[in-house]
């Protein structure tokens, strides 16, 4: 017998702080390096640090080629003793947080800058799609080249067939996120979205219509991970990490994706956090398409599998609703800046829990859940992760 079930240590004494967002732009003539550099600069300014103070760096980007994190150390004049490159798309934020937290906890680094950023040149998106993965190149892209729209269309259609979700249910989430986005200054979408406009939008890949899709853009997000005492000495507000999970290529035998890896680790998440779904004040899901938000409600324990549509019908999702969700507007309304999309929810959660929301502030937000999802390698998203975060006492 191989021993399993080792006891996980908590993240005591670790803080995530200094949420930074570089306002998104639909297209940019600058490089990913430029965007990441800007985020890093703002992060250091926000914490009162110089580049040489940073001893840990975690980077996520799709458009950094031919560089990876190591090239950025020289590019930015950093000399970290801990370095990570996380090519996990929408799961990058969660994974960066949990790895950096362990590094700090173990003393391998004192100050880890976690940065995600991407540029979006004209035609970048097509190039990213063409070279996304070997399976995509061999077995997805030649089939209509619909990218994630087509992959999620197939997942959405199957979910609708199986669990009776209707387009209106997805629309409700999109409309609520747009309401949140109207208060968030960085959102690319600045006009209200009605359910009627959602329903009558042009089809992209049935049943996916225009407002089910994120807008690819350029942007960057960053945060700092350090020990509690470091944060206090820097006089920056921090957020505690109660629990995290991460899982890849879960449920490979499900013919079409109906759940993510969260479903495998959700008990671990809540057990480690010491709180329950009812204690959560807001949820930031990874929302490149609304169906995956619905699956996150189910897989993270807010309702049972297949009850997502009813759960959506029974709740309100604006920042002041009974289930505040994607309170900055999410990627659907803010835009998807490549790998920074995998940081968006986490950055928003850090703001909510430090009372510094740029848009709608959830009243008395004490505990939040953030989840990530990414990498449609072939027919489904492979990476999933989640974190329960709490306001520092």
């Amino acid at each position, binding site marked *: 017998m191989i021993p399993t079930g080792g006891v996980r240590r908590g993240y005591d004494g670790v803080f995530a702080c200094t949420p930074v967002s570089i306002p998104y732009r639909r297209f940019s003539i600058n490089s990913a390096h430029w965007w990441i550099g800007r985020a890093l600069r703002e992060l250091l300014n926000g914490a009162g640090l110089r580049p040489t103070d940073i001893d840990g760096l975690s980077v996520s980007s799709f458009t950094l080629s031919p560089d990876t994190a190591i090239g950025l150390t020289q590019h930015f004049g950093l000399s970290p003793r801990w370095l990570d490159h996380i090519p996990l798309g929408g799961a990058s934020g969660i994974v960066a947080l949990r790895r950096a937290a362990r590094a700090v906890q173990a003393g391998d680094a004192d100050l880890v800058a976690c940065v995600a950023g991407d540029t979006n040149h004209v035609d970048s998106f097509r190039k990213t799609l063409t070279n996304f993965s070997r*399976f995509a*190149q*061999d077995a997805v892209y030649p089939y209509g080249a619909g990218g994630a729209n*087509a992959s999620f269309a197939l997942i959405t*259609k199957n979910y609708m067939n199986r669990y009776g979700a209707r387009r209106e249910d997805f629309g409700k989430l999109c409309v609520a996120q747009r309401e949140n986005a109207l208060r968030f200054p960085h959102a690319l979408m600045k006009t209200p979205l009605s359910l009627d406009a959602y329903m009558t939008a042009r089809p992209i890949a049935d049943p996916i219509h225009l407002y089910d899709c994120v807008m690819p853009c350029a942007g960057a997000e960053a945060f700092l991970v350090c020990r509690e005492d470091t944060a206090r000495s820097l006089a920056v507000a921090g957020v505690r990490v109660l629990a995290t999970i991460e899982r890849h290529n879960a449920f490979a035998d499900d013919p079409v994706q109906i759940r993510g890896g969260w479903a495998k680790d959700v008990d671990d998440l809540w057990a480690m956090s010491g709180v329950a779904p009812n204690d959560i004040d807001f949820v930031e899901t990874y929302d490149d398409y609304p169906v995956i938000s619905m699956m996150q409600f189910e897989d993270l324990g807010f309702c049972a599998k297949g009850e997502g549509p009813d759960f959506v019908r029974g709740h309100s999702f604006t920042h002041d609703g009974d289930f505040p969700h994607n309170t900055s507007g999410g990627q659907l309304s803010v835009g998807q800046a490549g790998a920074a999309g995998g940081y968006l929810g986490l950055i928003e959660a850090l703001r909510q829990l430090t009372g510094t929301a740029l848009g709608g502030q959830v009243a008395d937000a004490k505990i939040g859940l953030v989840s990530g999802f990414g990498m449609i390698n072939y027919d489904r998203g492979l990476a999933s992760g989640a974190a329960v975060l709490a306001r520092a006492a």
Partner: protein
Amino acid sequence: MTAALARPKRKNPLARTRLPLAAPSARSRTAHGLTLAAAEGRFALQVCADCLTVVYPPRDACPSCLSPRLPFRDVDPHGMLVSETTVRVSPETYFRERAPWRVGLVKLDVGPMVLAHLHGDAREGAGVRLALKLDRNGAPVMFALPENDTPDMADDPELREMTCDPKFRRVLITDGRNSVGQAMARACVEAGAAIIFVGVSDPWKPFAGDEALRVLKPVEVVPLDLTDSESVNELAAQNGARVDIIINTADHVRAGGIVDSKGVTTARESMELRYFGLLRLAQAFGPVMRQRGADGVNAASAFVNLLSIYALTNWPAYGTFSTVEAACLSAAQNMRAELRSGGIKVINVFSGPLETEWFQALPPPKVAPAALAKAVIDALRRGSEDVFVGEVAQDVRARLEVNPKALERELGE
């Protein structure tokens, strides 16, 4: 139900001809195992040699046992269409021009989930059979067909994009003087070709089957001598932009080897007709066909080479003949690369000895011209690239795969 294709109207001579665009063609080296199967119209996936797991997309290690032994094997193509979508927006120009385009996820009975192009009669929740096709770029793709044949199913626009169906297309058969050319003309008539140009050298010289050929509709006998560049160029100048499929039926069969033959006259004649004739055709017709690869219902689509199976390995009893056929095969591979950007398929149809005068002395089995013609039409309809017709061709091919040296020795005994 598939809407039956309407006969295309005469082309507006002032309208711009749309340029053919390439479907996404990048594939991993391993994925070309699918290319091999698709070229022959087989349905093959990797099957783990150690644990028998059927694997897709193509991998280099088995996802059940990590074995690197993953040969491609023919497997049951049946499955169920679980989820479908219609792609209406694509950043890829090829699909933009062809949108809306249906694709879907098929759960194969043998295990894997396969994303496939969908025939119009393939329905979500219903059984389908998958076929491996070569797309306009010669790259392998999965295509889901309805479980049972449906009326006019070959006319489905997504399917027709993968095939070279002669229906409503204009065919040039390069030699109508021989029985193969004549059988090919009859088969093209039956397949619904719009015009069948049949080349005849020295038309004033009578030949067997002359009358029967000329009365066929829509056959148009045209003067064509493949040994004469001027003749080939003249036909191309007149009709090159109206030829969608070329079937090269010119043959030059002579018994005899190399060492024990006297002189090079026969070899030179043979090369003149078969090899240089092929080059003349390729140079006169190839460029305009390549430009017309996306020219509507009757877009240019295929160049068919009838080759002897002994192009693959020399049969000393017909040594010079085999050598010339090998030269033609090599040229065909070159043409495949050069015509690919226009979406023109080069189809090689290999056969053993035919039931024709020049193979009179050989014992059966031999391939009847009508059977060869049928195989060509099938290959065009399937969009295959390599076809092996008859027992001898199949036998040689199978033996080549097992031990080419044994075959080389045995053919020489």
